[in-house]
């Protein structure tokens, strides 16, 4: 048993490396885990246990560039993180559990997590007992390289605090794991603020917006006031946006003026009109048009596929981006503006020489929170200089692109999860 353990340890140690940041951590981004068959708890069903662990791993995935997949097939020595329950002398471990009370679990940097089955572990939101989810998240933190953190609210506090109705990864824990593994970045399909009208309980009509980031077939709702995504995101596109292509979209445009209030999604050579009131695409809109429609039909002069687009309320034009060109479409005239298409450098010139995305933009996003247009490409974004910047700093060209910044420094923790974790 000792020889076997030593062999496992030696093999596992090769998966660890000093990261670019100089810390010992996992060197790969996709990690396999398994609840071992000889280590099931006697207190919860196996399915409950596996569900809780899937959720625990997903919670770390939501705030780091790591992805986790449950692996029931590979040889055990190829599984990165092994979990099991035991009591007293357990699972070949040298650290014996102490019975009911005090120590509830321990974890090793090699990837093994042991839970003391003499403790009364419970499923989430089941009242008394020790939340297995909370303990699992804590121990996984150790496996990933985090030590104990003595700060109120941290999941890495050594002592167990009775769980509130729900717990989530706070700012401190997010930054701690990102200190080891870096932040999350990647290209987006589109980014937009979705505006809709709602009625309050008092019958007043109010206008609300939410910010959405979309990447392929997933999306995140971004909570600007909390500097993070909604807990539990990403979500599959077809769940929140009924009728859109399930592999994602290229652009979102909201034409909002006194006379019009129309939302469009674009993908490939086609576009859809979205019914915000009923939260689904139109197959037949009130004007009798069927969707999807060819872009060239709805926007003469614009040929799909496009990279991205946004509606500028200042001049009532939709700006379509395609490769290194910009097409300004006059909504009122239902035609391209004179002189377009133009080079993106001409329409959106660089404020600092050489600092320009140069076309193939991923997303053009007007943010109501920031009151500005952003062009996103890869892990970077360029803010379009607005009237406020131009008043402060002269001379700035109209629609000039300010020097780039990193997306992850402006919008935090927009992290992928493994596809198997999309549905727990």
């Amino acid at each position, binding site marked *: 048993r000792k020889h076997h353990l030593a062999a496992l340890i*030696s093999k596992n140690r090769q998966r660890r490396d000093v990261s670019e940041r100089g810390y*010992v951590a996992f060197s790969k981004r996709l990690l396999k885990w398994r609840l071992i068959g000889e280590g099931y708890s006697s207190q919860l069903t196996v399915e409950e246990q596996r569900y809780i662990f899937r959720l625990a791993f997903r919670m770390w995935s939501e705030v780091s560039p790591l992805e986790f997949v449950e692996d029931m097939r590979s040889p055990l020595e190829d599984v990165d993180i092994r979990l099991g329950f035991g009591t007293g002398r357990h699972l070949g471990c040298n650290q014996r*559990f102490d019975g*009911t*009370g005090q120590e509830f679990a321990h974890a090793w940097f090699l990837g093994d997590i042991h839970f003391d089955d003499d403790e009364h572990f419970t499923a989430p939101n089941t009242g008394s007992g020790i939340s297995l989810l909370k303990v699992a998240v804590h121990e996984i933190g150790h496996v990933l390289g985090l030590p104990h953190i003595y700060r109120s*609210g941290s999941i890495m506090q*050594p002592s167990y605090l009775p769980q509130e109705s729900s717990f989530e990864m706070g700012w401190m824990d997010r*930054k701690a794991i990102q200190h080891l593994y870096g932040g999350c970045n990647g290209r987006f399909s589109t980014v937009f603020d979705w505006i809709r009208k709602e009625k309050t309980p008092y019958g007043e009509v109010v206008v609300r917006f939410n910010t959405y980031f979309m990447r392929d077939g997933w999306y995140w709702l971004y909570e600007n*006031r909390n500097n993070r995504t909604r807990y539990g995101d990403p979500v599959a596109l077809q769940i929140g946006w009924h009728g859109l292509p399930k592999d994602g979209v290229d652009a979102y445009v909201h034409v909002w003026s006194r006379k019009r209030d129309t939302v469009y999604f674009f993908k490939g050579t086609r576009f859809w009109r979205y019914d915000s009131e009923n939260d689904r695409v139109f197959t037949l809109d009130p004007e009798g048009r069927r969707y999807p429609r060819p872009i060239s039909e709805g926007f003469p002069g614009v040929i799909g596929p496009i990279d991205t687009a946004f509606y500028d309320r200042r001049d009532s034009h939709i700006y379509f981006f395609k490769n290194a060109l910009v097409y300004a479409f006059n909504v009122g005239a239902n035609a391209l503006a004179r002189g377009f298409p133009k080079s993106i450098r001409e329409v959106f010139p660089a404020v600092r020489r050489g600092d320009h995305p140069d076309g193939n933009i991923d997303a053009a996003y007007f943010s109501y929170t920031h009151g500005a247009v952003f062009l996103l490409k890869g892990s970077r974004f360029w803010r379009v200089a607005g009237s406020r910047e131009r008043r402060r700093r002269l001379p700035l060209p109209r629609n000039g692109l300010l020097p780039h910044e990193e997306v992850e420094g402006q919008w935090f923790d927009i992290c992928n999860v493994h596809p198997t974790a999309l549905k727990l």
Partner: protein
Amino acid sequence: EKLYHRRDRSDVRTVHSNQARVITDKHAAEVFLSRYGFIKPVNWEEAQFEGSASAFTDDFLEDFGDAVLEGSSPAWDGKDPDGASQSFISALEEFQRVSGLPVTGVFDEATKEAMNKPRCGVPDKEVDRNAAGFDLKGHISNNTSVNGSHDGDMGNTSASTHQSQAGHR
């Protein structure tokens, strides 16, 4: 539902006959402080191996009680009238500090209660694995710097004013 055969279901009721030893005195407190690295940082990675020279095991503690740990100085060396050495007091103070307790250096009721709370088995103070220079053979170079996290130790982490109430997923 678990299968039972007795009317009162006592055959499936969890019988907690295996209770953790309650920490009630300074001896047990010292074991606690040693176990979690407050007296001397623990080489947790190596603790997996039975008989590791740089870690202590439950068997060792059970066999020798609260006797001297390898490489550490005895807690009771008669230097203090109460029988507690400075290392024990310092360790106790450190535990009180990180636990948010009044730092008295005295094994008081609040400290006793904190020690008996459910907690993670990973030591709070470990040999710094990052400074230690791991190699593929798993041997760690001699380095006993502490790798536990205190306020302000975590680089860029700082409590955000945007710490929000946890909502439902």
